[in-house]
């Protein structure tokens, strides 16, 4: 195996940084993007990334090797439930499918609207402009002539082409079915990224079309104000009273300490709480509530309708089972229409088939958690007992919900796969945001309730796991957090 790697970067210079970021995934990169717009010319930023910075081609060729290497960084005591972090420059951007829907306004107030879960300390309106900013940074392709959520500006790129099943869903459910917003571009971009060619292996795009931190934001880490140190394993925070002074990390086998005025953790929802716990910062239940969405696949055989004419891997999103009064009792679901060719073998009917995926929200359970073991200072422990009854009721209702949904199509037969999809590759809710320090870790600006120069970034701060894919919300929260950080400085 040949690696075209960037050499292990030298350790950073001594002194105190203005900002120290842990991780280079979506959360940290988008925070840095906005931070650098505010920061003075002489600002000093240190970014510590545990993984290495590799080329896109390396990721295509070494996907499985990196996946296994990343799995070895934590102890999973509930092996039936896998988790899929990526320890590398760019974090989850190296394996995501570039699905970028926004959350719905009601997702932010699940408790006050439906009496379940908890409310977020931010509203959809608080995030709306940041959603738009993130969509522009990623060059999201999406529908601007209809949307399940209010928008103040159009998508930067036109939507992808529907497949024929999508068209029928749209005709039947005009206000509940839309082209999927996605960072798989419908047009070639000035940056050099080609248009999506519907290869259907998006986890590592073979033509580097989908947005990644590597292909669009690597320049941030070359800013003169930024020092990127890869191969740096952050062990714990250096906390004194109610202030974080820096982090302890190892680099090239040597223990080091870096000091900063502000520290931001963007190390995924397993390592963020692990760092807090190892540092004696257990406030607000850090580590508890680990979770993600859960999905069911439905294989539909069509009658006289061909499929797979869309222009990307996932072409349509259905909101028929998402919002509504059923969320008082059971989980809502987002439906994806898949355009990756899965053919039939019957003569003349090869394309009369479509795959649907129903992504159900789950409510965080306190016994699903991340903990640390003093005897193993390196690997957090992950335990996941069971999903919520709320999610289970949602999935159980799919059988009775499906006829209404599939009324849009000429269906010969369908089959709900008995086993849920193992993982959505999301890791969430272990350092939730909230107004009450007793049951939340950070405030609405992602600042730790007690340690006011510490931020926790990423989906670990989600109080709930809505059906919508989390990445766009992660990035919007990071952009907003950087704005609020500078706003708070200006007001003293």
């Amino acid at each position, binding site marked *: 195996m040949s690696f075209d790697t960037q050499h292990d970067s030298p350790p950073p210079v001594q002194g105190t940084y203005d900002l120290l970021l842990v991780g280079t995934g979506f959360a940290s990169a988008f925070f840095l993007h906005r931070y650098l717009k505010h920061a003075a010319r002489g600002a000093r930023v240190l970014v510590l990334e545990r993984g290495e910075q590799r080329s896109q081609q390396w990721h295509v060729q070494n996907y499985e090797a990196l996946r296994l290497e990343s799995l070895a960084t934590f102890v999973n005591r509930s092996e039936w439930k896998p988790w899929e972090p990526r320890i590398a420059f760019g974090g989850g951007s190296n394996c995501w499918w570039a699905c970028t829907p926004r959350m719905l306004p009601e997702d932010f107030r699940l408790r006050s609207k439906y009496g379940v879960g908890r409310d977020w300390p931010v509203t959809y309106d608080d995030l709306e402009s940041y959603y738009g900013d993130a969509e522009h940074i990623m060059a999201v392709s999406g529908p601007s002539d209809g949307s399940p959520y209010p928008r103040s500006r159009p998508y930067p790129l036109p939507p992808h*082409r529907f497949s024929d099943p999508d068209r029928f869903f749209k005709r039947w459910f005009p206000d509940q079915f839309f082209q999927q917003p996605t960072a798989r571009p419908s047009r070639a971009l000035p940056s050099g990224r080609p248009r999506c060619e519907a290869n259907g292996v998006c986890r590592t795009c073979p033509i580097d079309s989908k947005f990644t931190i590597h292909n669009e934001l690597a320049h941030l880490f070359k800013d003169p104000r930024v020092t990127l140190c890869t191969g740096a394993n952050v062990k714990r925070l250096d906390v004194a009273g109610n202030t974080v002074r820096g982090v302890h990390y190892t680099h090239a086998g040597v223990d080091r300490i870096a000091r900063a005025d502000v520290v931001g953790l963007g190390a995924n929802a397993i390592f963020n709480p692990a760092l807090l716990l190892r540092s004696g910062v257990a406030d607000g239940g850090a580590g508890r509530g680990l979770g993600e969405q859960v999905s069911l696949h439905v294989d539909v055989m069509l009658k006289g309708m061909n499929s797979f004419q869309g222009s990307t891997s996932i072409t349509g999103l259905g909101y028929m089972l998402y919002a509504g009064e059923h969320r008082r009792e059971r989980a809502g679901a987002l439906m994806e229409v898949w355009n990756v*060719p899965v*053919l039939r073998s019957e003569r003349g009917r090869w394309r009369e088939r479509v795959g649907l995926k129903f992504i159900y929200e789950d409510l965080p359970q306190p016994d699903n958690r991340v903990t640390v073991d003093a005897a193993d200072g390196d690997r957090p422990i992950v335990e996941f007992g069971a999903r919520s009854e709320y999610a289970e009721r949602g999935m159980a209702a799919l059988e009775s919900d499906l006829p209404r949904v599939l009324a849009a199509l000429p269906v010969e037969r369908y089959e709900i796969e008995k086993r849920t999809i193992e993982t959505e590759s999301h890791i969430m809710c272990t350092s939730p945001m909230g107004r009450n320090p007793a049951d939340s870790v950070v405030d609405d600006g992602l600042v730790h309730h007690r340690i006011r120069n510490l931020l926790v970034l990423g989906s670990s701060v989600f109080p709930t796991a809505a059906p919508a894919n989390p990445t766009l919300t992660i990035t919007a929260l990071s952009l907003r957090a950087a704005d609020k950080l500078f706003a708070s400085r200006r007001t003293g």
Partner: protein
Amino acid sequence: MQTFALGAGAITTLAFRDRRPDTAEPYEPGPPAFPYLRLRTGTVEAFEADYHHHLGQELARDRWPEPVQAQFLLSTDFFRFDADQARVISYVGFYEPTITPSNNPLARFD
């Protein structure tokens, strides 16, 4: 009337000719999964050789799993000509997007 009838007959003949199989070009029958297809000679062998080359597995020609059947069809020009079963079908290249990307014959971008 007679002219019209002759004209109609000529048109019918032309249409019929377009639908007849291209028997002038030599072909071999499709694999057991698709016996009705007409393939350019060596198409199946080329696919099986590439399958072995890229995935390191031998295929039992009479027992292709459904995903392999799909992969075979996608590796030919079958869908590029509207799945015309009367045509002699050619092998285009091994359909595995991580190896040969930008080759999805079903996707449309217009």
